[in-house]
């Protein structure tokens, strides 16, 4: 899985992912989110526009990141999810807490 992090704004970090978000890649994603939050960016945007597939372990990494962000008085948002990822989110109703945004720009606004 490809991972890239950068700052979006003050206190807002971006984690851009590419490839398959599954049992193999989930620990790395979780660690990358923890690192952003631990590094003083409690507001995290995870861009999924290059993620081709996500399973329940991948979803688990995002949920863990969301919990961690909220503990740090921040939040975690996702952008660019494809139809398969959206289906996983909708079925579990987790789209209500991880509300999908179309673009990184949209996700990065109005915290």
């Amino acid at each position, binding site marked *: 899985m490809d991972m890239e992090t950068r700052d979006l704004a003050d206190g807002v970090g971006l984690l851009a992912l590419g490839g398959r978000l599954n049992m193999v890649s989930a620990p790395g994603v979780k660690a990358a989110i923890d690192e952003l939050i631990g590094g003083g960016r409690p507001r995290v945007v995870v861009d999924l526009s290059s993620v081709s597939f996500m399973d*329940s372990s991948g979803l*688990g990494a995002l949920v863990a990141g969301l919990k961690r962000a909220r503990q740090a008085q921040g939040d975690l948002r996702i952008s660019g999810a494809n139809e398969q990822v959206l289906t996983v989110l909708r079925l579990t109703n987790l789209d209500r807490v991880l509300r999908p945004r179309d673009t990184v720009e949209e996700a990065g606004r109005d915290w």
Partner: protein
Amino acid sequence: MSAAVEQARIEEIASLGLLDAPSESRFERIVRLACRILDVPTALVTLVAQDRQFHVAEQGFGSREIPLSQSFCRYVVDDDRPMEVSDARLDERFRTNPLVTGDRSVRFYAGQPLHSPGGVPVGALCILDTTPRALTEDQRELLADLAGLVQEELGRSEEFDRGRDVQLQLLPKSTPDLPGYEIAGGAVPVGLMSGDFFDWYPVGDALQVVVADVMGKGAGAAIIGAGVRAVMRGTSQYNELDEAVQRLAVSMESDLAETGSFVTMFAARLDPVRHELTYVDAGHGLAGTVTAAGEARLLDCEGLPIGTVTQGGWRAATHRLQPGDTFICLSDGLLDLFDDLDAAVAAIRLTALESGHAQEVVDRAKAYARGHDAADDVTIVAIRRVAA
């Protein structure tokens, strides 16, 4: 490689239980075969551990481990793809490796990655020679096939076999005798053990049915699943369904937090007299009915999975089953085999219509999962109200 990915690998290797264990004939056989078939003096089954490369089995090498700095296989593991080095003296990465410069005089290397049952690359099946060479396409395929054999063996140990047997024992062994109803359930684990389970038992005059899917798969998910099953049985006897789920969530909260896991669950009580199915859906989302006339609909689902962000808000809803209605609940492993949810629902609808009995619905779903090499555990429960 990130520290977290490496950590995942280290944990997977530990869970295999092969590190520093006595050499086993099932692996020795394969390295001997590799040497004979591919005409090389040395073959190894390796695990790339934190600080060293451990040899689960070796032929023609004479040592059970080497320092990580000498490992060829770690490149195979890092890249998670086969690697072939025709002449190590000409390769920047290995030119000064003591295996190459020393008495062992390694020139040729070919390695195939080996994955744990959880899908994590953990080591390699490799062959070595003291003269430069290149594999033919045929030989490459042979090595890949042998690696497949090793990989199957990695997931198989007596301990896992026992674990699987115990887990099978935890599934319902008999079908409840509910006048006017056919009830069937089945599971197809992707590995030896499954993060899914289904369960049914009487609660008062009703039959309670539970289908749950623990995040992830394999033995870790199975342990959490066994806990969910037991707690749900306990909380269900003296509580309404929504209260039982609420108490389950409170009981499991710390376990799920500690393990970074969550559970989706569909739980229902079937009143066979009023023909009412009262259910709570905790983020499961894959339950619905197909009527005798062929109308398929998913049941409304509004609860979050257990162990995610909020604990609470699980409300029970009721659906009345008409004569000929088939209720079906699946785990998402089956969904992954279709292009999208609509395609999955269409296939389930057709299966329900064509099946003469609830058991046939389950059998056909299981056959489909096996036939399509499902990458995740598949579980299904079907309940049909017999047509009047």
